[in-house]
């Protein structure tokens, strides 16, 4: 009996001692702090050592000696380390965003090749030049006022170090709710906007705007007066695109639908199916409507004729360049690779890849089954349609949803091309309205259906906590927000584009002379053939335009 008590007492003592040791260890660990004295003695390799040996094995390049020290007298401090870590995070995000922006800029030759390949050789210089000049014209307009209107009130962006100078949004109060309409800081990138973070944001947003303006040149190819194109592009880059960009991305009223009306996370458009592609596609629709179809596109009874492009090699190459650039477009829209959930870049890239591939597959199958041949140009448009459609949802959906979205986009683009040819009889030489307009809108709606709530970009999106969820994951409000976005694209953006281009039509005149159109726009509009050594079918037309007043120097024929 006594020995049992003794054993029990010993056991209790042991248990007590163990518990005490555990708590003591934990307390010691919790109290562990890093002081300046702990790191003052940390040293890296000497300069002499590095100079003598070199570092072929990458063993000591990049070490404590490379940490910036604020006060040489104090030496390395914890504050120095913390500052270096913070700057490294922002540096990673700057480099990521800039490289992605450069890739998006490289989409310009992709667009140029696709569009030029899909039109006739006699207009190649004209189409190439339009694609070339959207860069210069659009950039200038965006620099003057477009960026300020779009992002002037966007507020802090943690991934880029704050962007605190962009803090002024024009807001009106309607029915007791604030409606952000446009930004007011950043004109000419002057004043406090001369800020490293703001300039990174400008570059990235500028190349997105450039994509929008280049969409329009495709639908208006082969009949658009170059001067009208210049004026139209400036208006799109300076006002129309930035306005919708502000509403969606710059803390404008669409992005605040979640906060103000409880509609999910407000209008969500991760990389711009709506902001970039639908705006471009609907402007293309407005312009194509005003311009009217090319001569020969429709017969007198209204039946359409196919007008094949002159170089499928250009089309295919351009498409692949675009598909490559899209890896900057979508993953780059995280605006960083470090912090705030930005590691989803892998998911965004895979979604982008999957949707593009499945869309090209479904478009190919559709055309093969319907017309008996696998149509190359529609396979290309299918791939682009999938990429456009996944642009908005890419940051919010899982890979299976990306496959479904892409598959549908491939079918939609084929149906839309047939629809525009046969029902409203709108001539779109490259299918830009179908690819960007129709599938841009499909992408916006897809967010409201397929967003799975797993994304968490810093804990909230559009100031609403948690991940974005679509209808299939339990949030009907998100679908409402997306549909309001679609209604705004059709109702407001299209209207603005139409009114602007109508004005251009009245003042400048949108359509070139019929004789110039028949001759090909290279000589009458641009003064030089793209392929001067080629025997073009249009020589007889060119000769007939020598005496006509179409703006071409007669000596060049």
């Amino acid at each position, binding site marked *: 009996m006594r020995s049992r008590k003794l054993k029990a007492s010993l056991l209790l003592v042991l248990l007590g001692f163990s518990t005490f040791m555990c708590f003591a260890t934990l307390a010691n660990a919790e109290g562990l702090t890093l002081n300046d004295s702990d790191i003052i003695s940390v040293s890296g390799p000497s300069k002499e050592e590095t100079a003598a040996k070199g570092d072929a094995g990458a063993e000591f390049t990049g070490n404590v000696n490379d940490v910036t020290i604020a006060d040489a007298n104090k030496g390395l401090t914890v504050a120095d380390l913390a500052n270096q870590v913070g700057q490294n995070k922002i540096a990673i995000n700057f480099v990521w965003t800039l490289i992605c922006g450069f890739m998006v800029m490289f989409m310009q030759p992709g667009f140029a090749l696709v569009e030029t390949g899909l039109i006739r050789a006699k207009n190649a210089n004209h189409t190439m030049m339009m694609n070339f000049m959207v860069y210069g014209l659009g950039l200038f307009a965006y620099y003057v006022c477009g960026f300020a209107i779009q992002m002037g009130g966007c507020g802090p962006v943690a991934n880029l170090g704050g962007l605190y100078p962009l803090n002024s949004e024009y807001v009106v109060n309607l*029915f007791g709710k604030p409606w952000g309409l446009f930004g007011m800081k950043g004109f000419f990138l002057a004043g406090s906007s001369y800020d490293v973070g703001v300039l990174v944001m400008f570059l990235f947003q500028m190349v997105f705007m450039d994509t929008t303006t280049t969409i329009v040149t495709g639908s208006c190819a082969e009949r658009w007066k170059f001067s009208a194109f210049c004026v139209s592009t400036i208006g799109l880059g300076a006002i129309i695109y930035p306005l919708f960009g502000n509403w969606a991305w710059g803390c404008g009223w669409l992005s605040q*639908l979640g906060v103000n*009306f*409880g*509609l999910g996370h407000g209008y969500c458009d991760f990389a711009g199916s709506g902001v970039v592609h639908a705006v471009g596609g609907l402007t293309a*629709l407005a312009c194509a*409507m*005003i311009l*009217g*179809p090319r*001569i020969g*596109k*429709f*017969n*007198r009874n*209204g039946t359409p004729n196919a007008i094949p492009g002159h170089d499928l090699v250009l089309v295919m190459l351009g498409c692949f360049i675009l598909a490559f650039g899209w890896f900057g477009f979508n993953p780059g829209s995280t605006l960083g690779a470090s912090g705030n959930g930005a590691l989803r870049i892998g998911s965004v890239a895979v979604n982008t890849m999957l949707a593009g591939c499945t869309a090209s597959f479904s478009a190919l199958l559709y055309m093969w089954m319907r017309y008996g041949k696998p149509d190359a140009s529609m396979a290309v448009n299918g791939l682009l349609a999938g990429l456009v459609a996944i642009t908005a949802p890419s940051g919010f959906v899982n890979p299976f949803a990306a496959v479904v979205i892409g598959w549908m986009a491939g079918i939609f683009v084929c149906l839309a091309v047939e629809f525009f040819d046969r*029902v*409203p*009889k*709108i001539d779109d030489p490259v299918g830009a309205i179908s690819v960007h307009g129709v599938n841009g809108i499909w992408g916006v709606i897809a967010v409201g259906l397929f967003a799975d709530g797993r994304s968490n970009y810093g804990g909230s999106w559009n100031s609403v906590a948690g991940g974005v969820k679509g209808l299939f994951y339990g949030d*009907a*409000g998100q*679908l*409402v927000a997306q*549909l*309001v976005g*679609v*209604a*705004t694209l*059709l*109702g*407001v953006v*299209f*209207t603005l584009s*139409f*009114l602007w281009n*109508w004005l251009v039509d009245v003042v400048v005149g949108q359509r070139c002379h*019929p004789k110039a159109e028949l001759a090909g726009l290279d000589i009458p509009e641009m003064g030089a053939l793209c392929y001067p050594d080629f025997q073009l079918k249009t020589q007889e037309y060119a000769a007939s335009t020598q005496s006509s007043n179409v703006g071409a120097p007669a000596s060049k024929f």
Partner: protein
Amino acid sequence: MRIIGVLVILGGWAIAVSGLFLTSSNSIRILFCLGGISVSLFGIFGVLNQYYLARAIWKK
């Protein structure tokens, strides 16, 4: 005709947005949005485009 088309298109947007104020039911808001989108599409293809189709180059 073009002005009427523009007004119809804008009217579609107004219908979609008015749903935000008139009801708190998301189902009904979806119906408002779809109705507004349909009206805007009618304005684009049924009114504006008809104006331009009537003057189309291939009809001359």
